[in-house]
């Protein structure tokens, strides 16, 4: 079914990523945007805003915005989602570079796709089955290809694991165990076969939602140096170089044939990606209906300072509930939060209402009671958080803090994705609540790079902020990517487990049991059980579900916040008028 992806820091704070089933629906004043057909030609702009793209390497991307945009403009996969706002259609893969949506054998343990023979890279070379196999192999080079959703292949692909729980194949750079990989992923002419350890009915959805199985060119792979290299096979290619902090310009790729592609309309002649503009700059231009932003769309949410002017925007305003949940994570490596009592004190002291109000109120957020978004099938309120008032329980917090082993007052450092007035305000609101309970909080806003800092296992913080959306509507794409320490934690990175949570054998066994359950309803309740255990351990503290409030440029046509792109603008259908 469906969707989604991962977090990313939004501007204001929170942010995130992707979608879920439910999302599209959204509430009353939801707008879908201009429903008109897009118009061809012209130059369109996408504003990354102050949150730079951290990877353009398909196997390293895990931010919803970048996954969506690259998939719509320059990276194609075997299968992809059609541009649709229908919760079912928008999350059902259709063929893209493959001739069909894949055939499975042995009850989902073997998947076969046939690559089209009329598709080419931007330099004119044909896209081969070997390119897909090579792309898949890069997921295993965890010393170089960092940041992506490698956990899925680790969990499923039929490659033996060593004593450390990691696959014995170490990627195409070291080539250790290459024969093991070649057995699991093999090519026969144009047909690629993936062999799994266990049935994986969601496999095509994972390909459409993420970019981790995109093809890659072995002859152009420079490892980490390829992080911003874009080898296009879609309608646009990068003109010149990508510059971090500035962006880049995409022009038409003459080796892309519209006849091979039913998804991407590729209407504008160029797409300019801009980094570095503040939300205020972008939104002032949207409202004034002048300036470059007139031809632009963005993934930055509208700052609360603009809420009183929404009426001015008219049809340019759209609102959808996102598939993301924001939460804070106590750092299990910190001397304070090693102790469960200290984590419980933090849980009780956390004031969701203050955080939400500081970030713009009910228009911007709705409270969350689990790391899982309610739109994911099998969602249950996490009992550990459901009973606490939204504004916290100061008495219980003080009681728990009294038993906390850390020296009083308990000094903690909160590292968050900052750099905008709204995020700083929200952080101060949380700090005020924590301090009231007896913590002494230091705020540590990170402005430019966020995830690469908190992914370091020895990073110096006690609490951090994170946001996540299901990769597709299954709790199995929420809990293991975030909290399965076997796939997240390596000596150099904690993956997406920013709080360095280690569940130990008990949690590992629960995760394995949930994965092994093929009945989706039973699996959902097993996942809810894992979530309950995470709640007991206070592995995370849920804050809210982001509501997307967007404007777009007045010259944009064909605008839609599709389910297929996690509630963000779907670049596949957008055009600009002159």
């Amino acid at each position: 079914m469906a969707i989604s992806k991962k977090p990313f820091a939004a501007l204001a704070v929170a942010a995130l990523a992707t979608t879920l089933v439910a999302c599209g629906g959204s509430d009353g004043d939801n707008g879908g945007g201009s429903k008109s057909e897009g118009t061809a030609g012209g130059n369109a702009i996408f504003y990354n805003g102050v949150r730079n793209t951290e990877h353009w390497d398909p196997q390293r991307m895990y931010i919803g915005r970048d996954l969506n945009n690259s998939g719509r403009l320059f990276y194609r996969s075997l299968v992809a989602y059609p541009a649709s706002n229908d919760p079912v259609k928008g999350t059902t893969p259709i063929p893209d570079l493959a001739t069909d949506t894949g055939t499975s054998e042995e009850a989902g343990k073997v998947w076969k796709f046939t690559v089209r023979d009329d598709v080419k890279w931007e330099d004119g070379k044909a896209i081969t089955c070997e390119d897909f196999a090579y792309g898949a192999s890069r997921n295993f080079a965890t010393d170089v290809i960092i940041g992506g959703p490698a956990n899925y292949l680790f969990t499923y692909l039929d490659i033996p694991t060593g004593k450390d729980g990691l696959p014995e194949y170490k990627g195409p750079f070291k080539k250790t165990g290459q024969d093991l990989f070649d057995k699991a992923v093999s090519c026969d002419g144009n047909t690629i076969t993936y062999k799994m350890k266990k049935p994986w009915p969601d496999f095509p959805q994972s390909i459409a939602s993420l970019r981790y199985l995109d093809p890659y060119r072995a002859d152009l792979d420079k490892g980490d140096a390829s992080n911003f290299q874009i080898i296009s096979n879609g309608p646009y290619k990068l003109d010149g170089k990508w510059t971090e902090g500035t962006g880049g310009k995409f022009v038409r790729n003459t080796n892309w044939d519209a006849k091979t592609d039913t998804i991407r309309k590729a209407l504008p002649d160029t797409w300019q990606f801009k980094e570095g503009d503040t939300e205020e700059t972008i939104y002032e231009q949207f409202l004034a209906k002048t300036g470059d932003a007139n031809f632009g769309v963005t993934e930055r949410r509208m700052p609360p300072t603009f809420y009183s002017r929404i009426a001015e925007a008219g049809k340019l305003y759209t609102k959808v509930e996102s598939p993301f949940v924001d939460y804070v994570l106590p750092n299990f490596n910190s001397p304070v939060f090693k102790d469960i009592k200290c984590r419980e004190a933090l849980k009780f002291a956390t004031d969701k209402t203050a955080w939400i109000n500081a970030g713009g109120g009910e228009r911007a957020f709705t409270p969350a009671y689990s790391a899982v978004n309610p739109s994911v099938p099998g969602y249950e309120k996490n009992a550990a958080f459901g009973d606490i008032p939204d504004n916290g329980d100061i008495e219980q917090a003080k009681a728990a803090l009294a038993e906390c082993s850390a020296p009083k007052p308990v000094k903690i450092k909160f590292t968050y994705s900052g750099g905008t007035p709204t995020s700083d305000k929200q952080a101060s609101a949380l700090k005020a609540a924590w301090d009231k309970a007896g913590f002494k909080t230091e705020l540590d806003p990170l402005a430019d790079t966020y995830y690469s800092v908190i992914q370091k296992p020895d990073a110096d913080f006690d609490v951090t902020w994170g946001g996540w959306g299901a990769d597709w509507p299954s709790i199995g794409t929420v809990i293991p990517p975030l909290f399965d320490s076997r796939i997240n934690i390596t000596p150099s990175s904690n993956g997406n487990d920013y709080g360095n949570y280690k569940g130990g054998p008990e949690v590992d066994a629960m995760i394995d049991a949930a994965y092994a359950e093929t009945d989706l309803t039973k699996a959902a309740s097993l996942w809810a059980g894992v979530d309950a255990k995470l709640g007991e351990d206070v592995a995370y503290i849920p804050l809210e579900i982001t509501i997307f409030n967007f404007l777009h440029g007045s010259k944009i046509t064909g605008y839609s916040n599709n389910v297929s792109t996690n509630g963000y603008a779907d670049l596949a259908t957008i055009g600009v008028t002159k």
Partner: protein
Amino acid sequence: MTIPASEMEGHAVPPLGESEEGVAGKVAGRSPTQLAMARFRADKLSMISFYVSCFVVFAAVASPILVKIGVFDPDGLNQDKLNTDLGGIPHGAFGGVSWSHPLGLTPGNGEDLLSRLSFSMTYSLGIALTGTLITVLIGVVLGIISGFSGGFVDATVGRFIDLTLSFPQTMMLLALAAPTVLLIRKDVSELPLLGFLENPDLANGLFVVIILSAFGWPPVARVVRGQVLSIREREFIEAAKLIGASRKRLYFKEVLPNVWAPILVYTTLLIPAYISAEAAFSFLGVGIKPPTPTLGNILRDSVSWTTADPTYFFLPGIVLALTVVAFNLVGDGARDALDPKTHR
């Protein structure tokens, strides 16, 4: 009657010379200090600015005490007084002005703006004054040594000044901020008596002071050197040398008292420059971090509320402008008073 002058001098400089108090008779002799103070007092604009500056200093000193006893609450949330439908703009006219919050509330969190602005003066003035003192100290010492020694020493100091001036100060500030502050908090704070630097606000503040002084002293040194060049040829210096005065005595007992006037002027002009520099640094995200109120942090937050909450947008700007103008005019007044021959 001497209160204003001694207050003023108290910030930066000891008295110019002993005034001959108690000279009786109808023809009272007046010392240069008395003359200068009389000229200063006669200038209305300077006096008004002086009172404004005193008020700011008073706010800076009193705020921490008022926060301690609970009169001011710069970090307390009053979200119940905000309109959450409109993104958190305070209910009520002019940004939520009321008896309990005379300047209104901040949007989003509803903190008391008067408390924040007043408390911000403590940080902003603290940084500006400390920075000014260190700047002047370095500038004066290097200026006297350079001007008096001449030759190789003078040339070396001169080149050092050129080098410092050619450094890209803002770049250095941005690039060095994180590692330096970490160094201060982790290592420097281990030293005896410096434990307080573990506090992030003080560590960040110290970093700003270091940058301001490290790049602010060359103009002071140049002015002092220029003065010293003419003074060192005077007879009393020759006389002192002949009776075998030590270098230290020559520098600080013979030369220094004769360059007080330009130093005083420079000092009073540096303070407002540093107040606005501190605000600019906070605005850029270096220096003391939010939510601690400094003028820059408040401004950084307020600029996005231009249209949604104009009161909140304008008040911090007005406070910064008034403060800087007042200190500047005091500096100008001091220059006119001490050196009436200079024309602006």
